[in-house]
């Protein structure tokens, strides 16, 4: 089993690479998808204790969640002055509010009198002013204290001393980001290539069509890492086309994979068990059949075409008509592929049309062994159309199936497969004698990048 290892990170699966598939695209491919950026980041094991230790999780609360940029909600949650959104992360709670037609602000969700959370729960709400339910102290939506019952008893409360505590708040791509660190660097310095790349796929011109939030039975990092590589496709999804996926590391905070859909290479499976999909290989018609869940017009691939070209063309018409958008010049790649950008520490953005998701993974309160997974479908909006009010989230508990979420359709069983290994993995961390997980140099490099950046945050004087 031993391989020569003088140039670690340079090996790739045999067969055509993503760049080859993009070169054969029937349309122009947006330049960011042509970029390739990978560097070998090391091959040391990652300690299992990072996923299981309460002490590590407590330190993450203080040094990671208390200091990193994270999206709290979409701008479309805050359409009118007074619309608010409560976002909770570990023990922290933040109120994001539209305080003026062109201004969004964020505040610590805690009364400046005796500390009570002003708004309970999480999610979208509305109040023309913010009033503490305990003694009735009240602030305007700009966070200024306006009403203080029995004012005579508080001569020590001065002008401006008891306003709500401001939290840094910026927007990008239609998302509202917050950062609990008053000294945080601007969001723009944190987004790496995202603004440039997503100028080709503007997420602010998308609407939330579906939001599913589920409890997952693993640490937040293990949960998100189940979505950072396509190496698991063969075993977890019984799918032939993960091995040729392209992985890019754009910097400390941003990474990406591009996973082609609708094709695969027989050679890439040469050392996978059995003859499946190798002998005999899949025909183009069989590949098209695998894509039928998208709702295609064609059942067979016409002579001279490929499953990929036929599926992309059917989806241009079908999705274009459904959304009222002209997709005729959109590349096969954007139409079909699973293109996944990750923003440290816990956010995923997909620029694709058929695969248009956003993910967010968080600790589930202070439980080191479970996490919250927010899954959104972001649908492109026709030109000039206004954002409708986002749908309420569908909540799934840890033992529920994604097939119970109305609107997920064919994705339900896929996400059950993606999350089906997590309880076993979280349990396995604790019984392993090996003390660490081992990562592939290329296919799992994005996971290592996250841990390296996490280490920088965990160092006491980072940033």
């Amino acid at each position, binding site marked *: 089993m031993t391989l020569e290892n003088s140039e670690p990170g340079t090996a790739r699966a045999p067969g055509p690479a993503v760049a080859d598939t993009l070169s054969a695209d029937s349309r122009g491919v947006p330049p960011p998808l042509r970029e390739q950026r990978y560097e070998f980041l090391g091959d040391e094991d990652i300690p299992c204790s990072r996923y299981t230790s309460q002490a590590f999780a407590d330190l993450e609360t203080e040094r990671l969640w208390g200091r990193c940029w994270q999206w709290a909600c979409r701008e479309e949650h805050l359409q009118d002055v007074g619309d608010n959104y409560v976002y909770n992360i570990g023990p922290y709670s933040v109120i994001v509010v539209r305080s003026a037609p062109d201004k969004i602000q964020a505040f610590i969700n805690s009364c400046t009198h005796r500390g009570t959370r002003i708004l309970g*729960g999480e999610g979208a709400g509305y*109040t023309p002013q913010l*009033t503490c339910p305990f003694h009735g102290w009240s602030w305007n939506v700009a966070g200024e204290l306006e009403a203080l019952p029995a004012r005579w008893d508080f001569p020590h409360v001065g002008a401006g001393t008891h306003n709500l505590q401001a939290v840094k708040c910026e927007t990008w791509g239609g998302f509202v980001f917050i950062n609990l660190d008053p000294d945080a660097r601007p969001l723009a310095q944190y987004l790496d290539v995202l603004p440039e790349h997503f100028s080709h796929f503007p997420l602010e011109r998308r609407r939330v069509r579906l939001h599913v939030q589920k409890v997952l039975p693993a640490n937040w990092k293990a949960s998100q890492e189940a979505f950072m590589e396509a190496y698991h496709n063969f075993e977890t999804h019984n799918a032939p086309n993960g091995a040729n996926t392209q992985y890019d590391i754009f910097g400390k905070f941003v990474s990406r994979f591009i996973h082609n859909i609708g094709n695969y290479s027989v050679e890439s499976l040469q050392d996978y068990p059995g003859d499946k999909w190798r002998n005999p290989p899949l025909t183009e018609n069989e590949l098209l059949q695998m894509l039928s869940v998208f709702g295609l017009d064609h059942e067979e691939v016409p002579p001279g075409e490929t499953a990929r070209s036929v599926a992309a063309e059917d989806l241009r018409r079908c999705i274009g008509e459904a959304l009222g958008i002209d997709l005729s010049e959109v590349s096969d790649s954007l139409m079909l592929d699973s293109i996944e950008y990750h923003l440290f520490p816990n956010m995923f953005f997909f620029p694709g049309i058929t695969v248009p998701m956003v993910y967010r993974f968080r600790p589930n309160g202070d439980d080191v062994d479970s996490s919250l997974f927010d899954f959104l479908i972001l649908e492109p909006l026709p030109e000039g159309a206004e954002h409708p009010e986002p749908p309420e989230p569908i909540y799934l508990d840890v033992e529920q199936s994604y097939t119970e979420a109305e609107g997920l359709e064919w994705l339900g069983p896929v996400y059950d497969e993606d999350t089906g290994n997590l309880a076993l993995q979280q349990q396995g961390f604790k019984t392993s004698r090996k003390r660490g997980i081992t990562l592939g140099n290329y296919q799992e490099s994005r996971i290592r990048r996250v841990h390296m950046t996490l280490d920088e945050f965990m160092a006491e004087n980072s940033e």
Partner: protein
Amino acid sequence: MSDENYCRVASLAELPQGKSMSVEIGEREILLCHTSEGVFAVDNLCTHGAARLCEGKLKGQRILCPLHGAAFDVRDGAALSRPAVRPLASHRVSVEGDDISVLLVDE
């Protein structure tokens, strides 16, 4: 209206989907809410602070109190979030043509 206890309170034209409005039946204030699932009627006064819910906001199937942001499910009046813990009284609604009529359940 076949049942004389139903009281016509508004026209559907006044209450597009996504909107709420208060009406009076006798001296009682009732909140009508037109959601994606139909027209619903609940008491207009929040069970926590007695604020008028018609001055709050309808989001999906929830009405949000303007004072503390408490949420109630307009379909059955259930209190969904603090500081409200007691449900709103929920009333029967009949929509025939353009007429919205309400039958108070507890009178």
